[in-house]
C-alpha cells in the first residue's frame, strides 16, 4: 500500500501545498466556503513553529499577512466572495510594495452575500481589476484536489520569485471536493525562496534592480537593513516620490515583471486539441465538466478539444490565438454570466466562431449543457 495516497478536500490540500512550499504564517477571517483553509492552518502551523492568527476582519487578515511577509515568512491569507472584495486595497498595497503574498479566493455566488455555499467563478475580472490603479496580476486556477496542492506551491513560488501578490482563484467546487490525491514527496516539486540581499552593502537601495532583472532584492525587516516601505509611489530608496518620471518608471517595471516573464508564468493544460474543430475553454471546477463534454462529443463524432488555463492571469494570449487559427470555433464555459469570454473575444477577434455557456445561479455547469452549446456553436 502506498502511504502517499490520501482522500482529501481541496481546501485542505491547499494548506498542505502551502506548508510544502514553506508557508509559516496564515492570517484570515472565517468565511464560507474557505474557512477550512484557516482551520487547517490553525492546526498545522503551530506544530511547525509557524504562526496562525484569526484577525478581527478580512482587511486585518491580509494586512497581517503582508506584515509577516515583510519579516521574511512565507505568508498566506484566504477568503471567499465578500472577503475578496474587502481585501482588494491591500492586494494593491502588496503589489506596489513588492511583498510576496498568496491570496486564496474560494469563489462563491455573488454579488454581495449572494449564494454563500454555492460555487461560482464570478471573481475572474475582479482578480484582474479589483484593486484600484494599474498593477501586475498573477492568478492561478486549480481543477482538482491535487492541483490545489500543486498550484498553491506554484503560487508561493511565483510570489517569491517576482515579489508580488499571487491569487489562487479557486472555486467552491474544487475547494470542497474530496478526491484521491497522491501527495508529492519532498523534493518532487520545485520550491522557490525569495532572494535576500547580500549582507553589509553600503548604500543599500531596497527597490533598485540589477541590469536585466525587474525584481528588487528587498531585505526582511530586522535583518540589519533599515529602510522605508510605503504604498506611495517611491523611488529606488523606497521613500515617497512625486516625480511623474519616477512614477512611470516604477509602474513600467512592476508591469514588466509579469509581461516579460509570461512564458515562465503562464501554464495550461490541453486535451485532444490537436485535430479539434471546436475548442472548449474552461478553468477550475468547470473544466471537469468540459472534459466530460469533450469525451461525449468525440463519441458522437465531433472533433472537440479542451483548453484549460491553469494560469488565468496573465491571459494565455499566444496559445489562445493559435487555437483560434486552427479550430472552427471556441466555446468558453465558465460559472458566471460572461467574464473570461470577453478576454477570449479580444484576443481571437474574428479568427473563428465564438460561443459562450455560463450561469450564476449556484448550480455547476453540467457536461450536457456544454455539449448542447458546442453543437449549436459549430
Amino acid at each position: 500500500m502506498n502511504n502517499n495516497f490520501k482522500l482529501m478536500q481541496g481546501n485542505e490540500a491547499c494548506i498542505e501545498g502551502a506548508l510544502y512550499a514553506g508557508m509559516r504564517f496564515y492570517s484570515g477571517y472565517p468565511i464560507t466556503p474557505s474557512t477550512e483553509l484557516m482551520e487547517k492552518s490553525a492546526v498545522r502551523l503551530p506544530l511547525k513553529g509557524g504562526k496562525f492568527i484569526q484577525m478581527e476582519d478580512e482587511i486585518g487578515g491580509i494586512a497581517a499577512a503582508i506584515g509577516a511577509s515583510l519579516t521574511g515568512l512565507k505568508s498566506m491569507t484566504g477568503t471567499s466572495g465578500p472577503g475578496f472584495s474587502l481585501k482588494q486595497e491591500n492586494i494593491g498595497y502588496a503589489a506596489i510594495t513588492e511583498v510576496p503574498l498568496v491570496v486564496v479566493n474560494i469563489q462563491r455566488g455573488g454579488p454581495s452575500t449572494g449564494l454563500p455555499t454555492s460555487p461560482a467563478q464570478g471573481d475572474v475580472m475582479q482578480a484582474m481589476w479589483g484593486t484600484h490603479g494599474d498593477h501586475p496580476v498573477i492568478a492561478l486556477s486549480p481543477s482538482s484536489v491535487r492541483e490545489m496542492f500543486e498550484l498553491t506551491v506554484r503560487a508561493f513560488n511565483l510570489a517569491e520569485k517576482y515579489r508580488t501578490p499571487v491569487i489562487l482563484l479557486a472555486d467552491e467546487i474544487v475547494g470542497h471536493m474530496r478526491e484521491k490525491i497522491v501527495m508529492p514527496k519532498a523534493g518532487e516539486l520545485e520550491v522557490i525562496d525569495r532572494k535576500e540581499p547580500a549582507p553589509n552593502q553600503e548604500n543599500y537601495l531596497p527597490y533598485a534592480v540589477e541590469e536585466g532583472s525587474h525584481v528588487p532584492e528587498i531585505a526582511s525587516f530586522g535583518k540589519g537593513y533599515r529602510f522605508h516601505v510605503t504604498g506611495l509611489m517611491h523611488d529606488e530608496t523606497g521613500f515617497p516620490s512625486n516625480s511623474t518620471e519616477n512614477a512611470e518608471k516604477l509602474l513600467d517595471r512592476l508591469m514588466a515583471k509579469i509581461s516579460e516573464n509570461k512564458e515562465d508564468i503562464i501554464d495550461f493544460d490541453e486535451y485532444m486539441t490537436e485535430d479539434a474543430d471546436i475548442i472548449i475553454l474552461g478553468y477550475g471546477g468547470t473544466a471537469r465538466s468540459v472534459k466530460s463534454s469533450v469525451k461525449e462529443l468525440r463519441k458522437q463524432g465531433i472533433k472537440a478539444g479542451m483548453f484549460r488555463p491553469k494560469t488565468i492571469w496573465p491571459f494565455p494570449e499566444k496559445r489562445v490565438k493559435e487555437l483560434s487559427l486552427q479550430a472552427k470555433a471556441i466555446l468558453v464555459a465558465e460559472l458566471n454570466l460572461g467574464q473570461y469570454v470577453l478576454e477570449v473575444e479580444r484576443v481571437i477577434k474574428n479568427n473563428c466562431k465564438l460561443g459562450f455557456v455560463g450561469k450564476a445561479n449556484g448550480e455547476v455547469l453540467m457536461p450536457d449543457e456544454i455539449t448542447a452549446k458546442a453543437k449549436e456553436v459549430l
Partner: protein
Amino acid sequence: MASALIEKYMRSDKFPHMWCPGCGHGIIMRSIIEAIDRLGLEKDKVCVVSGIGCSSRAPGYMDFNTLHTTHGRALPFATGIKLANPDLHVIVVSGDGDSSAIGGNHLIHAARRNIDITTIVFNNNIYGMTGGQYSPTTPTNYFGTTAPYGNIDRSFDIAQLAGAAGATYTARSTVFHVPQLTNYIEKALNKKGFSLVEAISTCPTSFGRRNKKGDAVDMIKWLRDSAVTVTKASKMSAEELDGKFTIGEFKDTEAPEYVEQYEKLIERLKGEDDE
C-alpha cells in the same frame, strides 16, 4: 540634546518634513526617539508602522525599519510583524481618524489581544491631510469643513477606549507637556503588552484656524490651559471640567501577552505528530 538625537535617530536627509508650520507632530516624534534612546533600543530591532494621514508620515523620517501602510490598517500590519518576528520592538504611529475611525476595529482588537505593540496616537482632533474634516475626536460644537454649522457628534476618548478594550498601559499627554509625554512613551515601550499613549497635538492650519484658536503658540497655550491631571479632575465638578480634557496615566496593569502565549503554545505542542 535634540541635535544629538536627530543625528542618531532621524533620516535628516529627508528634511524638511512635510508638516505645516506650527504643527505639533514633530514634538511627538522627538518624544518617541528620546524614549527609544533612554531605553537603549537597538535601531535594527525597532519597527515603526503607520497608516495614512499627517501623523503617518513620521516613520519616514525615523531611522528604523519603517512601514507606511494603508488607511487605518497600521495595527494589523504591525500585528503580523510582531507575531512573525517577536524580536522586533513594534511601534505604531497613528492619527485620531486613522486609529479610531477607519482603524477603530483594529485598535480595540489589538488591545483585546494585549499584543506587545506600543501605539502612539497623534491626536490633533481633525483630518488634517484632507483639509479639515471633523474626526471622531473633534469636540462637539467645534467646526470642520464637514461640520460647517458645528459638530453634533460626540467625541471619543481614545486612551480610555483602548483601556476598556484590554490595553495594559494607557496614558494621555500633550505637545505642551513634553517631559511627561516622553515619560509615558518610555513606560509604554517598556510594557510587555498592548500600550497606547494619546498625544494631543496641534493643527493650526486645519483645526485652529477654523475654530479661532489663534496661531501655533496660542494653540499650545490652549493645551496648557485645557489639560487637567487625572487626580485634579477627580475633584472637579462637571461644570468645572467643561471644555477641559484629562492628562495622565489611566491604566497600568499586567495581563498575558499574545505573542508570548503563542510561543508557549508552540512549545507545548513540541514533539506532537505533525501529520
